[in-house]
């Protein structure tokens, strides 16, 4: 990727000579900023900040002309420091660092100021205040950037091998994709076989293809390259490290001697494909566990697979004259209506696959058992995907009777005298009339809930979202990446998905993994602690404060001379060590104490009345 790195190589180490020449660029963000912040006025004021020799406004700094103006000024105006005031650095910090590189400037001599989220959006009703705040923040950034020194990315060796956790469809696909490009892969599955939820045979929507057939294809893909090592009945018992350098201990099944087998491996990336757990209704929820006629769609899948052919469906020895499905069991839960789960969480999310799963099962019942009636009690039929709507019309044609309830008026279920189940609810397809149904079988369309994922989640501090699923970096643009660099998300570990979507997500995770593994070295941001060896007297205070295992260690450099040493791969640059050093001997690259001082000065300066 970084051939461009070479171009600033010639001056990247050199401290720019003389007084820093700072360029300030203020973005209107097409109105997102300038509708509130007076960008022109701010630019005018910025001319007066010490060190500023260029101050400009642009409609979209991130556009090509915007970036080009920075590059032109680096050359034309001999800029050696850049400040861009625009949106969140989360979106565009890298964009402008790239522009600096193309202008042959060290990218760490660039500061990003967020005057959108932090000014125009939050102070919409106070344009003057928002403008003043924007100016103050720019002042602080100019102060900081004047103190900035050129930095270089940290480059470390990359262990070019992938670990895939979870051998469901998503994990198998990710492993096969990576191995298919020549990379060695370790696939770790907790149970005794690959396949995840597809292990139980079923006819899959939206194609009607059998799950066994898909699994065979995926498994042959996994095995054919010879580059995937599959570890069954295994789990990750310990993991530490960082991108390019994860040390993992895998606990395998009991060996012949009865001892547990632990294997230590090192890998460069980890793909989390730990899947989902079907929602398990509470005891007594819709009579679940209390009545033999109440089962979930998961159980019904198996019941259907082994049901004998005949006029009527038979489940667990019971002949089914009428069957009903209730949608959204354990999904789309509403506060005050539903009971939270054992972890205190409500499943507010839609589980995405249940609607079409019900249609699929209902059609199969109607096709195979002419004398079994089917009722489908739903809120919204979410047959959104390609080919799904066909299942909806097909179900209507097959005689499935649709009834619609409102989420805040849950159907009431009770045991009827003749062993059947009584369901009562208001139906909004017949004008809010109360419907009372007696059925022999009630199938609860259970949603997807987050899987436990194992210890790795705590050990690597992988974040979970409010819904409990592993949390991607950006729900729109970066769905398969997570905030821990080097870890990727595949399939339903991240969110409910059907099979095709899980496989697509797995492919997307695999491609990111491959991009990381094609490099000889991994590159990390240089914002880590740095020890001033002249000053360090080995008090060890810093090590007591450090929360990141192995990031700081005390090294005996020569007899009696102990000094702190930083492992740049493990240090996250939190700065806890800086605060406690009695000799001010430790600092954070890019966030040195002088830089903070300069920021404060910059803030104060801009707040003086003119």
């Amino acid at each position, binding site marked *: *990727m970084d051939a*461009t790195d070479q171009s600033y190589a010639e001056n990247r180490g050199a401290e720019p000579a003389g007084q820093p020449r700072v360029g300030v660029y203020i973005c209107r*963000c*097409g*109105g*997102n900023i300038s*509708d509130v912040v007076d960008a022109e006025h701010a630019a005018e004021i910025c001319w007066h900040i010490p060190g500023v020799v260029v101050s400009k406004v642009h409609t979209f700094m*991130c*556009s*090509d*002309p915007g970036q080009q103006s920075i590059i032109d000024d680096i050359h034309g105006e001999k800029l050696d420091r850049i400040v861009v005031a625009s*949106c969140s650095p989360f*979106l565009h910090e*890298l964009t402008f660092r*790239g522009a600096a590189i*193309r202008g042959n400037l060290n990218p760490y001599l660039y500061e990003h100021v967020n005057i959108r989220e932090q000014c125009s959006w939050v102070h919409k009703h106070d344009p003057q205040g928002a403008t003043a705040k924007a100016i103050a923040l720019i002042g602080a950034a100019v102060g900081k950037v004047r103190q900035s020194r050129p930095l270089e990315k940290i480059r470390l060796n990359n262990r070019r091998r992938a670990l895939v956790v979870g051998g469901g469809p998503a994990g198998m696909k990710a492993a096969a*994709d990576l191995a*298919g*490009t*020549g990379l060695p892969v370790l696939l770790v599955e907790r149970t005794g076989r690959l396949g995840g939820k597809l292990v139980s045979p079923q006819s*899959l929507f939206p194609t009607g293809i059998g799950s066994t057939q*898909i699994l065979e*294809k995926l498994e042959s*893909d996994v095995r054919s390259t010879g580059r995937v090592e599959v570890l069954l009945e295994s789990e990750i018992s310990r993991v530490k490290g960082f991108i390019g350098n994860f040390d993992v201990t895998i606990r395998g099944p009991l060996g012949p001697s009865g001892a547990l087998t632990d294997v230590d491996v090192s890998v460069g990336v980890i793909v989390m494909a730990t899947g989902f757990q079907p929602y398990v209704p509470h005891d007594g929820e819709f009579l679940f566990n209390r009545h033999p006629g109440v089962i979930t769609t998961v159980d019904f899948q198996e019941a259907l697979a082994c049901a004998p052919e005949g006029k009527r469906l038979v489940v667990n020895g019971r002949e089914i004259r009428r069957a009903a499905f209730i949608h959204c069991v354990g999904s*789309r839960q509403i506060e005050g209506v539903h009971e939270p789960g054992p972890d205190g969480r409500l499943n*507010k*999310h*839609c589980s995405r696959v249940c609607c079409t799963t019900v249609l699929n099962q209902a059609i199969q019942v109607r096709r195979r058992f002419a004398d079994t009636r089917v009722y489908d009690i739903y809120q*919204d039929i*979410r*047959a*959104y*995907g*390609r080919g*799904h*709507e*066909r299942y909806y*019309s097909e179900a209507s044609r097959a005689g499935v009777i649709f009834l619609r309830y409102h989420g805040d008026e849950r159907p009431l279920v009770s045991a009827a005298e003749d062993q059947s189940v009584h369901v009562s609810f208001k139906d*909004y397809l017949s*004008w*809010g009339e109360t419907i009372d149904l007696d059925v022999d079988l009630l199938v609860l369309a259970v949603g997807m809930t987050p899987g436990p994922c194992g210890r790795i989640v705590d050990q690597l501090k992988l974040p979970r979202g409010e*819904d409990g699923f592993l949390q991607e970096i950006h*729900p*729109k*643009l*970066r*769905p*398969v990446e997570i905030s821990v660099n080097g870890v990727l998300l595949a399939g339903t570990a991240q*969110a*409910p998905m059907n099979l*095709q*979507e899980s496989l*697509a*997500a797995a*492919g*997307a*995770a695999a*491609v*990111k993994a*491959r991009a990381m593994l094609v490099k000889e070295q991994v590159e990390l941001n240089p914002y880590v602690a740095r020890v001033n060896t002249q000053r360090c007297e080995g008090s060890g205070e810093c090590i007591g404060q450090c929360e990141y295992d192995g990031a700081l260690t005390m090294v005996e450099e020569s007899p009696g001379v102990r000094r702190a040493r930083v492992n740049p791969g493990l240090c996250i640059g939190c700065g806890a060590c800086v605060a406690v050093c009695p000799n001010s001997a430790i600092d954070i690259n890019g966030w040195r104490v002088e830089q903070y001082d300069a920021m404060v000065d910059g803030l104060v300066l801009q707040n003086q009345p003119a």
Partner: protein
Amino acid sequence: MQAQIMEKGYADALVIGGGIAGLQAALDIADQGYKVVIVEREASIGGRMISLSKVFPTMDCASCITTPKMSAAAHHENIEIMTFTEIDSIVAGADGHVVSVTRKPTYVNAEKCIGCRLCEYACDSELPDVFEQGLGATRAISVAFTNAIPQKAVLLADYCLSCGLCLRACPTDAIEFDQRPRQERITAGSVIVATGFQLNSLTVKPQYAAAQNANVISPLTLERLLAPHGPYGRVLRPSDGKIPDSVAFVLCAGSRDQTIGVPYCSRVCCMYSIKQAMLLAGSLPMADITIYYMDIRAFGKGYEQFYQMAKAMGIHFVRGKVARVDAAPHDDLLVHVEMTEEPVDCVRRQKHDLVVLSQGMIPQWNPAGVSPVHIGEDGFVATPDTADPCATNVPGIFVAGAAAGPKDIVDTIADAGAAAMLAGRYLADRAGKSRTPPSAAGRSIRLEMAV
């Protein structure tokens, strides 16, 4: 006379379409170390996404999250972009897929053009601005839109008065009236079809009377009205510039309907309508906003929660099929709804001053006659292999995004990654078989349109 076809050499992957699907696929292929060419028929990359206002469910400003992708692709050392270029044919060759393209004349020398727009300011010929859904005007020679990539002017010959004003205004003598279409040929190791979607016609259902009423609008028009840098900078209805105070959204106005040949669900309309309703509620706090729907399909991560939030904000969700829209006095509209939640013969008539029709999503490109790629009965590119959702019937040709059926942005991004992975696998496999992978032999291309 047959124009000469210029051979442009080999690329590992050729991506058709520079929307978010094509950009993401190109980036993911290029990051694996392969050379990629993106072929885009319009003057700028960015696809539909760059023209949206904000995106559900994060409410990020669409420009703000699309430009980084556009810019990353444009500056990637492994990616070349050909805009204003059409695909003529894709045929199998010895070294890969031989792709013939036509570079449409822009009448501007891309190497000389510096994107200063002086030509645009000088031009006297005005036409409706397509990017703004016709709500504003643009000139016969212009840069496509503010954050377009590349920032190069394009002249539309059909509207040019040949007055020469631009010629005189251009500081770099970039204008070339004598340009002609050029045929070029690229050999591509793999191909990604990322040609996206279009909306079916606003008038596909005559009972919604869009042809007669300027205030029955497309959701794309509303996207531009809601965009912070949109044509008016605020929401005004088209007929008279009035600030609307009662807005209706009619869902499934071009989908889930056998009679118009779109029986399938367009998958994103529920969510973008809810998004637009929320944005409207933000900019017009006094307005009444109603969404007429059959089922609300809020299925993605965080979408149901987004829907519940909209309900809590006071947006009305009315379950009913809109039968007809009629003109009412003062440019207003009368919406006839069969209410399914009230007595069966209840047809309600409701007055609104702006009506938005959720048009159906249909494919933008049909490969027939150009390449052997099959399409499904819905017209979108067929994906016959359940275990490889992005593979087409042709080995080495993959599909990503809305080209394989309606899809929102996040599903498109995942899809693009999966397609890029398949391309990577395919290329690695081929490289394993032949000893000298063509790109390693130094035949990779350099295009003059480099941005």
